[in-house]
């Protein structure tokens, strides 16, 4: 006995292998077909199906004894003619979609071998539908029909297959499991067959579940239980007719068809009267009980499968109630708690429940009871002239199709009453245990190969519009268009005489306030204080007079003055790429900002950056946006004449670092390179001269210009790892910015001139050229190798020469080049190493460095910066 079963299983497995192998070879051959060949084949299949719609409808009705021939003809037309109409012009071979703005194209790849399970309720139409879909997408399909509909299903498959072969399709691309008592077992074997790529299951819940648990990709359907809410605004007459068309379609076998109506009390009397007039039977409470006993299987609580697709009079007879033979639907009022009513389930026959409700809320809630009572994700309907009601209904109900003012069954099929994709397979999403809520079709039978082209950013160069650039240009203030200005400055500006230089030159009729409380590291409370002053006495102009902190603070003050609703958190979110940042800056600028730098360092007068101390953490908040750019910058070296030597050198080293980092940045461009190179050249030339003769305006002027040029360079190219380290050190040990930059310069220049361990992934930086950039800088500065005069230095040597020049300049200027020289004890420095590394990584400057610094590399850079330097 055991061996017999084994033999049978072996024979079944052989049959399964044979079917799958045919399908597999055909799938391979399909890959060579063009769109034109495919379209010709699909057309031939459609023609053959249309020629046989009636023959197949009769065959289906005879075999299954379900539904109505007339409606099965319509279903066959939907699966062939309507389906073809919809897919005819769709591309399914080669490039099928293009997204020019995203620089992406989609290329089709067939899924391969499809195991298609087809139902008893729509046997021939489903086979026609899936065959056309498979051919259109160059897939093979093996049909496993429902046992009770196997002959008509396989007949349909044979008809379309023969037409396809005559039109040149690959041999064996459609196959089917022959009717036999072991059909189900054979199907199960194929569900787990390694050569089946996708299961496309339409049919009973058990099979769909088996498909989903086969471990293969599966397209399934869920069970339905369609609620239809009829709002008082609907037309009762058209609603009644639509519901009748839908619920009687193929005697109710269509799973999206209406199961329970939820009717507003205001419209119920007319609607029910209309149903009666059109020959629907409204059951009494006693009859409802009888119908329920007949159509509900007491063992399962679900519908009695023997009555699926039977006409209303026959069902009435089985239930023992008298109706006339032309009765269309048995309408059953569902009294009591709907959730517990026996008839509140799916009934694929002309038996329709209804409840009456007194409000939209109640209506949607009762519809939810049906929707979540076995039909989640499937289909629902709403009749309403009030769009708001439709929207609320659609928002609440979980259904892949929410059909409005039309029949849900034919409406769900798509193409006849609406523009839904034509289907005989209704995806129910996760609510129904499916992967999609689509009307499943060709779209779901393809693999989509996305081909993205490299992102091409529009690069731009932005800076302050009006820049006055020579000594004495502060005189521009005399012609400044302002009636009320506030000068934002620090205490030292008054001491150094800068404040009076500005006040004297402002127009006589201009009301002037002064806010001079900006300290070394302003925080948001400073901004708030200044903005409060400005609100008390409104201004049209903000004049920022001072070093980098003053200029940065004034930029933020102007932003918050112009945008009273703005929150700091909204604009200070960290980001990887400023083009993708979350922060949204208001683009409203009412107040003009005049920036007058009194140091030659940050270049803040021409950058869209502003840094603020965050009192909650140790870190600094960086704000970046074009709207922060000042409108006017005045680069007047007369304001720097009294700058002490130490600050002169510190700020010059900040500017030099800007030039060096902008040059190597991943965002550098020809525009920023020119600025960076010239800024460097000016600093190397003018700083030693200024130190020799601090009062000489020409060299001060050159230094002042250098800082501004370097500012324009970083304003567009940003900085790099050196600034990240400097910010971290500055925050931990309170070191002035220029000094903090200086101590890392020799380490980072060396680090960035070596082939990175990890390149920086940036679309706009396709080639690592940091070493070439440094070599070009050395060449531009005219650096020569004193050890090998007359020889052309290698690129590597040029990088060394650049570091040597930086070393020599620092030594000449007395600028520290190592952390030890800042007076920070080694043990303290080492104790805070983790904090320093973390702080560096949080810094945005890191992200435009030409190499992506690794954590150990950052630690090594920090460590190497401690001991005093040797000349490179």
């Amino acid at each position: 006995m055991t061996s017999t079963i084994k033999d049978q299983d072996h024979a079944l497995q052989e049959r399964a292998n044979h079917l799958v192998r045919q399908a597999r070879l055909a799938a391979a051959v399909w890959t060579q077909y063009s769109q034109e060949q495919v379209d010709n084949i699909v057309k031939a299949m459609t023609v053959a199906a249309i020629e046989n719609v009636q023959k197949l409808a009769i065959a289906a009705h005879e075999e299954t004894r379900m539904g109505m021939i007339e409606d099965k003809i319509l279903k066959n037309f939907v699966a062939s003619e309507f389906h073809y109409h919809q897919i005819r012009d769709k591309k399914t071979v080669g490039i099928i979609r293009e997204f020019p703005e995203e620089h992406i194209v989609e290329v089709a790849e067939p899924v391969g071998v499809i195991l298609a399970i087809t139902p008893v309720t729509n046997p021939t139409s489903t086979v026609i539908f899936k065959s056309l879909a498979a051919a259109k997408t160059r897939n093979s399909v093996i049909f496993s029909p429902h046992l009770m509909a196997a002959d008509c299903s396989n007949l349909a498959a044979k008809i379309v297959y023969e037409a396809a072969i005559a039109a040149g399709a690959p041999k064996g691309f459609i196959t089917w499991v022959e009717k036999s008592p072991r059909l189900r077992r054979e199907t199960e074997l194929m569900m787990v067959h390694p050569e089946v790529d996708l299961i496309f299951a339409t049919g009973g819940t058990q099979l769909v579940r088996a498909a989903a648990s086969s471990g293969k990709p599966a397209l399934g359907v869920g069970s339905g239980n369609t609620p239809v809410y009829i709002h008082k605004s609907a037309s009762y007459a058209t609603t009644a007719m639509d519901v009748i068309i839908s619920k009687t379609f193929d005697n109710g076998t269509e799973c999206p068809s209406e199961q329970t109506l939820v009717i507003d009390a205001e419209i119920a009397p007319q609607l029910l009267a209309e149903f009666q007039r059109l020959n629907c039977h409204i059951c009494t409470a006693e009859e409802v009980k009888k119908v329920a006993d007949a159509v509900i299987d007491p063992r399962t609580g679900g519908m009695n499968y023997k009555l699926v697709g039977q006409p209303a009079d026959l069902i009435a007879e089985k239930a023992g109630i008298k109706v006339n033979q032309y009765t269309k639907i048995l309408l059953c009022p569902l009294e009591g708690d709907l959730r517990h009513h026996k008839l509140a389930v799916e009934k694929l026959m002309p038996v329709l429940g209804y409840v009456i409700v007194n409000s939209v809320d109640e209506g949607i809630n009762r519809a939810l009871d049906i929707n979540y009572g076995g039909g989640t994700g499937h289909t629902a309907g709403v009749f309403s002239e009030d769009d708001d009601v439709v929207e609320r209904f659609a928002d609440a109900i979980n259904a892949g199709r929410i059909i409005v003012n039309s029949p849900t069954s034919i409406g769900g099929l798509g193409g006849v009453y609406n523009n839904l994709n034509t289907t005989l397979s209704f995806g129910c999403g996760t609510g129904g245990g499916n992967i999609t809520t689509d009307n499943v079709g060709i779209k779901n039978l393809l693999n989509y190969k996305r081909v993205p082209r490299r992102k091409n950013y529009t690069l731009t160069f932005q800076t302050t519009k009006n820049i006055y650039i020579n000594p004495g240009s502060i005189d521009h203030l005399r012609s400044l268009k302002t009636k009320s200005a506030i000068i934002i400055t620090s205490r030292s500006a008054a001491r150094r005489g800068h404040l009076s230089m500005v006040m004297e030159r402002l127009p006589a009729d201009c009301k002037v306030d002064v806010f001079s409380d900006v300290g070394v590291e302003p925080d948001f409370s400073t901004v708030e204080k200044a903005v409060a002053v400005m609100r008390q006495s409104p201004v049209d102009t903000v004049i920022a007079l001072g070093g980098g902190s003053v200029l940065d603070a004034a930029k933020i003050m102007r932003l918050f003055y112009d945008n009273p609703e703005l929150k700091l958190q909204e604009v200070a979110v960290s980001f990887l790429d400023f083009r993708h940042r979350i922060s949204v800056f208001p683009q409203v600028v009412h107040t003009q900002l005049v920036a007058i730098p009194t140091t030659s360092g940050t270049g803040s007068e021409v950058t869209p950056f502003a840094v603020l101390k965050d009192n909650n953490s140790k870190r600094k908040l960086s704000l970046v946006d074009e709207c922060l750019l000042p409108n006017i910058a005045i680069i007047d070296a007369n304001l720097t004449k009294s700058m002490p030597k130490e600050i002169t050198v510190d700020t010059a080293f900040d500017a030099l670092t800007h030039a060096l980092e902008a040059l190597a940045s991943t965002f550098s461009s020809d525009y920023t390179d020119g600025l960076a190179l010239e800024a460097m050249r000016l600093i190397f030339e003018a700083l030693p001269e200024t130190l020799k003769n601090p009062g000489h305006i020409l060299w001060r002027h050159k230094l002042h210009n250098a800082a501004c040029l370097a500012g324009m360079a970083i304003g567009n190219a940003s900085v790099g790892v050196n600034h990240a380290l400097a910010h971290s050190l500055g925050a931990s040990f309170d070191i002035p910015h220029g000094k903090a930059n200086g101590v890392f310069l020799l380490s980072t220049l060396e680090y960035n001139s070596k082939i990175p361990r990890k390149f920086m992934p940036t679309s706009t930086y396709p080639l690592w050229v940091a070493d070439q950039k440094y070599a070009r800088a050395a060449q531009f500065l005219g650096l020569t190798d004193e050890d090998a005069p007359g020889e052309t230095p290698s690129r590597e040597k040029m990088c060394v020469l650049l570091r040597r020049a930086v070393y020599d300049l620092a030594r000449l200027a007395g600028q520290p080049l190592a952390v030890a020289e800042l007076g920070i004890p080694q043990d303290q420095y080492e104790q805070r190493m983790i904090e320093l590394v973390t702080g560096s990584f949080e810094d945005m400057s890191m992200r435009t460095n030409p190499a992506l610094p690794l954590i150990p590399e950052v630690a090594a850079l920090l460590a190497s910066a401690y001991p005093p330097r040797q000349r490179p």
Partner: protein
Amino acid sequence: MSGENADQAVEQRRTEVLPIDGPLERGIDHIDRTLATGVNLTLDFTGCKFISVDGLEWLEELLLRSDSLGSKVVFTNLVPSVYKVFKVAHIDSLLRACGAPSQPTEPYC
């Protein structure tokens, strides 16, 4: 004969190079006949841009026959669209004739 000796015997046979010109829609008699003479075959696919299901089945049988005859059949110069047909067909003998390693039949990545 040890495996090594058998391999040597195959290597020592004469090799005929035969082109497959045009679409391979069915078996090619003269190739069958040439194989039967006991030579090794190199099938040159330079001129072949399409293979049908029958063509695939014939190639598979040809390889089976060559195995039983103790000779060797090698495919060369396949255009990508034809090579892909072999890849999708998952027929190990065809892939080996192209010099490709055996391929797992389950989807993998």
